[in-house]
């Protein structure tokens, strides 16, 4: 009998959460060394935001190639997930900044760029809700989902590196973590990615069912 990956995901995440508090030590050099553990949640949700936006782009390309509405639903679901995790990255980031920098929001370039990113994808949903006709909505939002990716890459990966930022940008590199941090960090990335896959599949199923229900 095979074990469903949802069960593995649940157990895995539980272990990661417990380990992040009990196994990992406080990090040296932080204002609040104990609170540096938010790393295990802040970085994975930011990664999932990027993954969501990229998944939205891939499905948008598939839609424009095949014109099958299923890909539009997938693209929209992925963009929603990206937006949700982007919001979570912003909130955990503000919390992190409040504890470690001493101010939750000081308009640091990293904060400005994620806010612009939220607006960029917020406009995607405004676009979707503004177009009634299904096929037209699908092709317009597919184009938007593809064209949003270059600015997304710029906002997430480039901008905070070319100007001064309080936010570190070279944490995810070999040798920048002691083994306790590295192990739990990688495990957390894997766990969150499984969680993303699970929620995404559920979301797509709901979208497909909704559409079927509307057309019956």
């Amino acid at each position: 009998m095979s074990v469903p990956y949802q069960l593995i995901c649940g157990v895995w995440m539980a272990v990661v959460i417990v380990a992040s508090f009990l196994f990992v030590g406080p990090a040296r050099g932080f204002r609040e060394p104990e609170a540096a553990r938010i790393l295990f949640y802040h970085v994975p949700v930011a990664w999932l935001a990027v993954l969501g936006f990229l998944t939205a782009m891939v499905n948008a390309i598939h839609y424009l190639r095949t014109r099958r509405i299923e890909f539009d639903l997938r693209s929209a679901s992925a963009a929603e997930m990206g937006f949700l995790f982007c919001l979570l990255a912003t909130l955990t980031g503000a919390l992190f900044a409040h504890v470690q920098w001493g101010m939750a929001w000081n308009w640091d370039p990293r904060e400005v760029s994620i806010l612009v990113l939220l607006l960029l994808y917020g406009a995607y949903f405004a676009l979707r809700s503004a177009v009634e006709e299904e096929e037209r909505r699908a092709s317009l939002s597919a184009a938007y989902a593809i064209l949003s990716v270059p600015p997304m890459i710029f906002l997430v990966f480039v901008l905070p590196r070319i100007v001064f930022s309080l936010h570190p940008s070279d944490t995810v590199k070999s040798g920048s973590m002691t083994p306790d941090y590295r192990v739990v960090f990688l495990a957390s990335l894997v766990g969150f990615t499984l969680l993303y896959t699970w929620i995404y599949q559920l979301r797509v199923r709901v979208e497909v069912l909704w559409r079927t229900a509307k057309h019956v």
Partner: protein
Amino acid sequence: MKKSALFGLVVVVGFVAFGATAFKEAATPYVSFSQARTAPSAVQIKGTLDKRSIRLDSINRTLHFDLVDEGGDRMPVSYAKPEPGNFRQATEVVVVGRYDGHEMQAENVLVKCPSKYQGRGVEHPPYVKIPPHTP
């Protein structure tokens, strides 16, 4: 198809490059020391902390230190709140405050986080925290 795709790519790259340069200035809230000296309101400055300049005024419970920018310009800062826990290890520091004619009166001192996460097996330095002052 190929020509139009190439054209599209050029347009996209062009817009991204334009957006990048136009956005770079607007995206950063940190001003130069000379701008801070003439600014009418509170501003944010960033600089390297000169560790030798750190001085604690125990009577007024005020922390004094100098920030140095890339050009070597020096800005004295005074901060009337408890010293941040990791201040003595800091290199890059952001100060939010206003210039009073000879120094920055800081409302907030933000310390850049380490990019390294050193947990188990690493010794922590003893933190000397000043107790919060009672008015």
